[in-house]
């Protein structure tokens, strides 16, 4: 009989969610394993926009607003720790962010959104500044003439998400955490309170297992008595050539990286866009970007990409521990950058100690249980 490698905790998934969790449990050292599928993975972490975004989030689930703010507040500490532990600067900026509304109709809907958001019981309120075009132009002189206005929130920011992912893995590796790459987990088999993870012909045993496999969680969660009904939701991003710094803070759909490239996305793609790559979508993104910032009209496109968000039925994260197989956890979200600090500094230590923190109770996967909903 082949003997299995033994770990206290196995994290399935080495993207931003898995890496942030591993960071928060890194003192387990060689008793912690991170299983990373490798380059065949969908890798939402390699496609994201890099925003640390608070404003507007939490409609229909007020605690999501609090959780997001909690993470945004913890972000400076995470960035400092990563710099001290690895020397990597993840280019964190948290001086505020702007959501632009191109038309009066969009501005009106934005205002209505905040009325509903802030009107919810228990919503942890924050300052949002409503700006007409002149107000936007004071913050952003480059704004287009026919932009109706926007909302400004001082809690918003951005970072370099690729450096974040690499710094997390670097910090984790320095503690001797075992990273196993190159094969997906085929099957998880509960065994005497522990878990056997089968990958091809190899098997390993872990006392606890944390599913952070993005879209793969949908398949893996039922093996340990959890549900994670996540589906792919496609987003597309256009990347412009490097230009001199002209955008000192991120817009929700346009940001300039610390190295000068300009990313164009569009929150409109958040809803209902899970089709294949579509030049018409890219054209629409470019058109809206030019209305927002006409100065970009002669900047050249370097590349464009599409990536798959990991979307739950209600769009909110799923955090759960299995009732039937205690010690098995599921963690999934589509804001792996914004929530990285909360995952690393709050969620991971709690899972290491054997329970989910009270703050994440509203995000239990049991909300998707048919019997609970009936």
């Amino acid at each position, binding site marked *: 009989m082949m003997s299995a490698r033994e770990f206290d905790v196995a994290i399935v998934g080495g993207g931003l969610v898995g890496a942030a969790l591993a960071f928060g449990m890194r003192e387990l050292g060689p008793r912690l394993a991170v299983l990373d599928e490798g380059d065949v993975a969908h890798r939402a972490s390699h496609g994201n926009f890099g925003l640390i975004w608070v404003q507007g989030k939490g409609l229909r689930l007020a605690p999501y607003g609090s959780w997001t703010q909690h993470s945004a507040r913890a972000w400076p500490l995470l960035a400092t720790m990563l710099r001290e532990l690895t020397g990597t600067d993840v280019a964190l900026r948290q001086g505020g962010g702007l959501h632009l509304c191109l038309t009066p109709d969009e501005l009106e809907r934005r205002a209505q959104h905040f009325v509903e958001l802030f009107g919810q019981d228990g919503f942890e309120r924050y300052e949002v500044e409503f700006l007409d075009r002149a107000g936007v132009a004071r913050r952003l002189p480059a704004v287009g*003439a*026919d932009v109706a206005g926007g909302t400004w929130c001082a809690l918003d920011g951005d970072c370099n998400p690729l450096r974040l992912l690499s710094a997390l893995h670097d910090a984790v590796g320095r503690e001797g955490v075992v990273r196993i790459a190159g094969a997906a987990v085929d099957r998880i088999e509960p065994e005497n309170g522990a878990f056997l993870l089968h990958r091809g012909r190899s098997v390993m045993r872990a006392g606890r297992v944390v599913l952070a496999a993005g879209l793969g969680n949908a398949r893996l969660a039922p093996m340990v008595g959890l549900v994670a009904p996540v589906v792919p939701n496609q987003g597309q991003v256009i990347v412009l050539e490097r230009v*001199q710094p002209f955008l000192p803070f991120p817009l929700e759909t346009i940001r300039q990286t610390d190295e000068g490239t300009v990313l164009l996305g569009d929150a409109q793609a958040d809803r209902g866009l899970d089709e294949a790559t579509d030049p018409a979508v890219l054209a629409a993104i470019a058109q809206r970007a030019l209305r927002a910032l006409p100065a970009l009209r002669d900047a050249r496109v370097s590349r464009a990409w599409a990536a798959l968000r990991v979307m739950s039925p209600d769009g909110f994260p799923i955090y759960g521990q299995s009732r039937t197989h205690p010690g098995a956890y599921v963690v999934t979200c589509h804001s792996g950058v914004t929530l990285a600090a909360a995952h690393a500094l709050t969620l991971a230590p709690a899972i290491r100690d054997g329970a989910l923190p009270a703050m994440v109770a509203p995000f239990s996967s049991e909300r998707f249980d048919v019997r609970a909903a009936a």
Partner: protein
Amino acid sequence: MFVRLPDLAGEFIEFFVDGQPCTARAGDTVAAALLAAGHLACRNTPVSGAPRGPYCLMGMCFECLATVDGRPNQQGCMIAVASGMRVETQRGARAVVVDPDAGA
């Protein structure tokens, strides 16, 4: 540094690098003309500031970016040099022109 092959024909033309007259041969790319004229570096990278010059000469590496006749970030290896052309070496990233009246 670079020496022209003797079997290539083509008339000599004058162009300008940072305002200084240089000689090229009709049919040269801007990148080849820069190298032949001894300008090995045509820009500094926006990230580290390191000097860079034409490398792949076939449109892939984007190392030969320069300002050509006032247009920034042009790939020198993809453009034929022309008589009187004004090539400027580029320090860091190009600017975007923020015109407060844009779109008005």
